[in-house]
């Protein structure tokens, strides 16, 4: 099985054991996708990790957008902003960087 910084990942690059997550892994995953993480990325990643802690699921994009709009403002809670940070999708790519499982209801 593939590894990133010593942590096992599945065939789609998601962490097998969510407890393995740390910032180093996150930065390496982003580097592999040619994404340089900024404060704005970390804002969303922290949000995703908090959401998972509270609800035990990775939110669907529609739900994520709405929740971010509520917490961080409408200028951030929209697909355009989120896709500009995570070109492969805030759900799929964002959750992967954040060490969450693939979103439930991600179709």
């Amino acid at each position: 099985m593939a590894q990133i910084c010593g942590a096992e990942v599945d065939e789609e690059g998601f962490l097998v054991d969510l407890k393995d997550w740390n910032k180093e892994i996150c930065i390496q995953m982003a580097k592999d996708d040619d994404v340089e993480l900024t404060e704005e990325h970390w804002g969303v990643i922290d949000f995703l990790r908090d959401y998972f802690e509270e609800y035990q699921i990775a939110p669907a994009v529609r739900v994520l957008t709405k929740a971010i709009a509520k917490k961080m403002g409408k200028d951030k809670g929209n697909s355009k902003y989120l896709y500009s940070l995570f070109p492969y999708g805030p759900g799929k790519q964002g959750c992967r960087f954040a060490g969450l499982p693939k979103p439930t209801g991600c179709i």
Partner: protein
Amino acid sequence: MATTKKFMYLNRRSSFGTVYAIESLEVVLIAAAFEQDVSLAFIDDGVYQIVEGQNTDGIGMKNFSKTFHALGDYDINKLYVSKESLEERGLSESDIMPLVYEDEDDDWAEKSSIKVVSNDELKAIMSEQDVCLSF
């Protein structure tokens, strides 16, 4: 626009003895993406799924009862609970998690998603559904 169907998910088993409860919840969350009219019913041991204060530390399983709090964000806000099933188990509405949603048409006011109904009322609600899925 495609027509909207009424889907009801019947939850009849407790949370952790079998996979039915968590599988039902996963299907509900996935189906929510299709913007259908979704409701959930908790009957028989299914009422235990939404009891407040669950702790899974001792059994080493994910405490997915927390996930029910996300349903409001998925626009699922009709959670019917059988009054008789609660009473048979010595439970009441105060033992159930406070599950809420924000009403878009009422300035995002927070409202309860829980509706305790009698089995007769539940029967009537079920007869209005296009699809009932039992777990």
